[in-house]
């Protein structure tokens, strides 16, 4: 699709965009050209200025300097209304949908078709069907959003933009929430869209996808454009070092595991979710000292509930959990934590950190009551401060100080701080759920190395991740979870990436082996 791109008209152009926030230049003289019918991938770490740039293009922010042209004419006012009017649509990473309303209602929201003062649902539904067929976006107009899976919700978001006649689509981290198969579907949709003349800006940090789908690649670092390339000229390694500004090891360097005694034993565990449905169904596995067991699976297949049960945050309905020989099936989270179990939670801002608290308080979140951080009920502020300082230094957390609120740190640094806290005590078992979700390449590398380091010290490690690449990079053994069950436990290397992807999608182990032949 890259051939004679120069002949195509420029649909969107940004010239010398500069955007300053107090104390930081988020975009520094950034220029960008989007040609009709191409996919422009925008790569960059957290804080590189990708989102700022997109929010400027979409009219949510106004730039301090520079101009934006749509089809050659300048964009005057910075407002999403103006941008939509001029054919720019955006699919946000966090969907902007109302769960209790139908697909049609969500699509027409804010753009209602009226007939004699009443909503004309039929006509709207008709148009949605047309769009859905034209671009290969299967979705039922009368379905409730809440009943749709993540992939379908994303299609609704895309339809929403197309319904408003968008010719330019900005996709913000669209694959972050998708299964490998769903991501493939999305790639197909993106191809259909460009084939029919739509132009796409694709924001991501997954290098493999960029190489697969983009026509051109632009890399941002520190608010500046640091490189423009094409998939033909680039490799994952070259893109990663462009993003980070130094060479990055994409493979975790680790030696073979030397497993010891079983630290975590799970037998026939059953756990219900909030809706009382069986989320974890008859799951059995064990993790030995000195090994990393990775649990692969698409989000929402019971991993969250499994991890909560292991940490005492949700009670099991049946089965047995034993940690270091002790039955902890119904133990409290504090009892489990005191056995030497660390937990990196999947949703750091929900569970792992209190954004309004300073790092000092966050640094002792689970052991605030223990010596030397408290004596009796009286806290020892000096010890708490020293501890936070120590975590920040040892794990290279970028922060102006330990007394600032956690909210002022980037996601990667928040995560590093959590990892530092969890690693700072004597551990037998580490449970890491989505340990690198939404953080930059440099921090991912660091956290991965720390996890392997803990394994080598003899800690049993359970890694739960929706990113198959992460599972492959870290695990010694891999368990695949699907619909609340563990469908296979294999040694890392026994199955190909594709076979694991099939297992994650519910194909049986036998079929996966056959299909692969």
């Amino acid at each position, binding site marked *: 699709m890259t051939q004679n791109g120069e002949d195509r008209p420029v649909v969107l152009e940004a010239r010398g965009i500069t955007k300053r*926030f*107090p*104390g*930081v230049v988020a975009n520094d003289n950034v220029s960008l050209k989007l040609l009709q019918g191409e996919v422009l991938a925008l790569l960059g770490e*957290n*804080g*590189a*200025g*990708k*989102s*700022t740039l997109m*929010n400027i293009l979409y009219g949510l922010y106004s730039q301090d300097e520079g101009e934006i042209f749509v089809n050659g004419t300048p964009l005057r006012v910075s407002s999403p209304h103006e941008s939509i009017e001029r054919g720019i649509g955006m699919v946000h*990473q*966090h969907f902007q949908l109302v769960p209790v309303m139908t697909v049609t209602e969500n699509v027409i929201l804010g753009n209602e078709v009226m007939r004699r003062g009443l909503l004309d649902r039929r006509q709207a539904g008709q148009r949605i069907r047309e769009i859905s067929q034209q671009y290969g976006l299967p979705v039922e107009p009368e379905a409730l959003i809440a009943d749709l899976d993540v992939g379908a919700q994303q299609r609704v978001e895309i339809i929403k933009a197309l319904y408003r006649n968008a010719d330019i689509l900005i996709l*913000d*981290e669209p694959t*972050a929430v998708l299964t490998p198969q769903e991501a493939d579907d999305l790639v197909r949709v993106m191809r259909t869209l460009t084939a029919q003349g739509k132009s796409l800006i694709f*924001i991501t940090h997954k290098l493999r996808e960029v190489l697969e789908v983009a026509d051109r690649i632009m890399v941002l670092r520190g608010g500046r454009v640091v490189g423009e390339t094409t998939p033909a000229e680039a490799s994952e390694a070259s893109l990663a070092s462009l993003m980070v500004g130094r060479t990055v090891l994409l493979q975790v360097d680790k030696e073979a595991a030397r497993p010891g005694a079983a630290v975590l034993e799970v037998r026939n565990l059953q756990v219900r979710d909030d809706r009382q449905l069986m989320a974890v169904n008859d799951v059995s596995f064990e993790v030995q000292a000195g090994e990393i067991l990775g649990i692969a699976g698409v989000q929402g297949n019971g991993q969250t509930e499994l991890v909560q049960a292991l*940490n005492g*945050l949700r009670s099991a309905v049946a089965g047995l959990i034993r940690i270091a020989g002790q039955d902890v099936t119904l133990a*409290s*989270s*504090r009892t489990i*934590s005191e056995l030497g179990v660390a*937990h990196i*939670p999947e949703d750091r801002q*929900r*569970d*792992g*950190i*209190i*954004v*309004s*608290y300073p790092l000092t*308080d966050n640094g002792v*979140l*689970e052991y*605030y*009551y223990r010596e030397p951080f*408290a004596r009796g*009920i*009286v*806290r020892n*502020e000096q010890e708490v401060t020293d501890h936070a300082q120590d975590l920040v230094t040892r794990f290279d957390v970028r922060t*102006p100080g330990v007394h*600032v*609120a956690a*909210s*002022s740190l*980037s*996601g990667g640094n*928040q995560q590093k701080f959590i990892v530092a806290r969890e690693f700072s005590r004597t551990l037998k078992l580490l449970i890491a759920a989505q340990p690198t979700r*939404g953080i930059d390449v440099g921090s991912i590398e660091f956290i991965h190395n720390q996890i392997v380091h803990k394994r080598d010290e003899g800690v049993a490690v359970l890694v739960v991740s929706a990113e198959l690449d992460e599972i492959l990079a870290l695990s010694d053994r891999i368990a695949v979870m699907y619909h609340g069950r563990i469908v296979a436990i294999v040694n890392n290397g026994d199955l190909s990436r594709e076979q694991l992807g099939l297992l994650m999608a519910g194909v049986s182990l036998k079929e996966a082996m056959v299909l692969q032949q």
Partner: protein
Amino acid sequence: MAVEGRTPEPAQPAGFRAFWARYSPLFVPILAVMTALVVGAVIIGMTGGDWLAAYIGLWQGAFGSPRALANTVIRSTPYIICGLAVALAFKAGLFNIGAEGQLYAGAMCAVVIGTMLQLPPILHIPMGIVAGAVGGAAWAAIAGILKARTGAHEVINTIMLNYIALRLTDWLIRSRQPLLLGDPLDTSSSRTPFIAESMRLPNIRLGETTALHAGILMAVILVFVVAWFLNRTTIGFELRTSGTNPNAAKYAGISVPKTIVLAMVLSGSLAGLAGAGEVMGVRYAVSTDFISGVGFDAIAVALLARSNPIGILFSGLLWGALLTGARLMQVRAGISIDVIRIIQALIIMFIAADQIVRWLYRIPQRKPGEEVLISKGWGG
């Protein structure tokens, strides 16, 4: 990616603007009070009153003489203590609207100890204080346990408990057959007997004619105790964490239900102390027209101070001053005492809708986590 668009920590440009950007949020409550006074002046003006005379009257009535000052301080004491009660619950994510009922429960318990026992003051006064705290704590515990066990919202339950406490007090005082806690010598049957001399709080003499009871000392001590408790103890940490982010609290191994009950008990004991303080220092009995409304105004006092204990010392004093000064304002300017209530209501509105104040005075927007913490949604 979600964090990327956030405005980073502002660097510090020099001069006044930097100072304003950094510290002006602290002035929001003060500016809210000033704005309310200005709007109040406009209202007085529109009703044909002389706002200047009114405000001079208000000032002199509250602070103009040692006597006025003493009255202000006495009037403020229950607001400060009760404000602490509400603030402590706020910090734990609970909206304790029941301070009023807890205050009555504490006051009645103090009356029982004060009328039934004869003890030397050194024992009797502490017992009265403890009785007040226990009464308020027990009353609040009901709502706390209901919330922790069943998830029943504390707002509903504390309101209902207020009604029960008020009606129960009324009945205990008025009932003649059987005679319960009413004073047989009081012909109007509108109060309890007076408590023994030995349980009355000692007076602090200020010159010839004025005296303060020791309740204000208790209030000031409690301000610092609550501040220390919230910020410097592990239990305070548990309370704040449960209030700020219950999920993280669970993750940290804190028992959220236990913390809810504890927070309500502590909040109720403070409200009960406010009731006991009034009985032991000011009225020496509970009457049917006991200091009603203090428990509700305490919510305003806590909000005005953004639940900061030290701030409550000042917002409580302001509340007492407005009410104390109102009488002289009425005399001087000939306007209704209700104007003070209007001004108080305006202050609360400007605090609750602090966007207005921020917009008026160009104060930077709140950063995440700086919101006035009231309580979680109704589903909470």
